[in-house]
């Protein structure tokens, strides 16, 4: 499926499938995650893919270590989380930095666009700054059409660097979450 050529317009782009397609293109074999509603479809696509080991984590920094092990063992991986999880990773991000190992993070944003829960706002507003302070290169995708080229750019810089990169999937892209009717 060539989502970017969809005649029906941007809203018809299946951007989680585009991320999965990029994972395949880059031979991503381990996908670790702390789930987020914004990652639901991508996680399901990876679970249905026999070539990808899906690793449910108990906390996000575990994934930073897991994917360091994957890289040392000769496989590529990706780490999925919500923006609040970035705060959990800070100390562990020293590992890819000093060992110069690839790390591809895909972060769904909370707290930035129509966020109903004020508790999500502080970490969401600081996510990009925290990642940059930890030497993780950030690339934002605000619209469905931006997702695939952004993922491709971040994956290339992660795996060919090697270095740590993060794709930030904007709340505007995912849609503000609501628990009330």
């Amino acid at each position, binding site marked *: 499926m060539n989502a970017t050529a969809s005649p029906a317009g941007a809203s018809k782009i299946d951007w989680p499938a585009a991320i999965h397609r990029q994972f395949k293109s880059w031979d991503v*074999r*381990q996908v670790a995650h702390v789930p987020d509603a914004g990652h639901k479809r991508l996680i399901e696509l990876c679970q249905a893919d026999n070539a990808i*080991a899906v*690793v*449910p*984590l*108990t*906390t996000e*920094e*575990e*994934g*930073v*270590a*897991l*994917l*360091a*092990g*994957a*890289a*040392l*063992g*000769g*496989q590529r*991986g990706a780490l999925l989380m919500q923006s609040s999880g970035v705060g959990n990773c800070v*100390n*562990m991000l*020293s*590992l890819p930095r*000093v*060992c*110069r*190992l690839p790390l591809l993070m895909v972060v769904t944003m909370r707290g930035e666009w129509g966020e109903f829960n004020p508790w999500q706002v502080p970490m969401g507003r600081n996510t990009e700054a925290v990642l940059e302070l930890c030497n993780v290169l950030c690339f934002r995708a605000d619209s469905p059409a931006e997702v695939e080229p952004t993922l491709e750019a971040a994956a290339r810089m992660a795996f060919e660097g090697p270095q740590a990169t993060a794709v930030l999937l904007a709340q505007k892209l995912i849609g503000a979450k609501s628990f009330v009717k």
Partner: protein
Amino acid sequence: MTTPELESRGRGNAKVMNRFDVTKRLVGRLKDEEAVIGGIGNTNFDLWAAGHRPQNFYMLGSMGLAAPIALGVALAQPKRRVFGLEGDGSLLMQLGCLATIANLKPRNLAIVVMDNASYQITGSQPTATAGAADIVAIARGAGIDKSVWADDESHFERLVDRALAEDGPWLIACRIDQQPAVAQTERDPTMLRDRFMRGLGTRG
């Protein structure tokens, strides 16, 4: 859970062993380029002191990461046995990784825990295992059925042999004394990375 090795006397009756001696015994039984991931601290230093192997990786930066790194290596290298070495203080910081490992059931992964009930390297302040926490009980509760206290050195060696021969995941816990590590690991991160990757054949 009926085999003799898995029937341990438990933490309270386990012999207090020496970390360097136990580590030498582990390394001495590795004959097939098994990977070993050393966690931060004296656990790491004694792995280095036991004799550097190209398949050793030394994690010197953040507590609690040896087991998740070992899991990533184990998934990437399913035909190779992988050992993660961790101290009690580090493992207590990342107990969730035990549930992650139990959930994935990697057949080729074993975690070895060196429990001296203290943050030895910062002045031997007591950890939670000096109180009521039992690492093997925690690991079993997390779902790692093959979790066991080593009663003594010979039991430890039999457990390592089992972990080399049978499906895991395993967690082997050792009570250890307060002797300091006998050497310090070299610290250049990219050198350690390259040596390990060449040792595994994942880098030319």
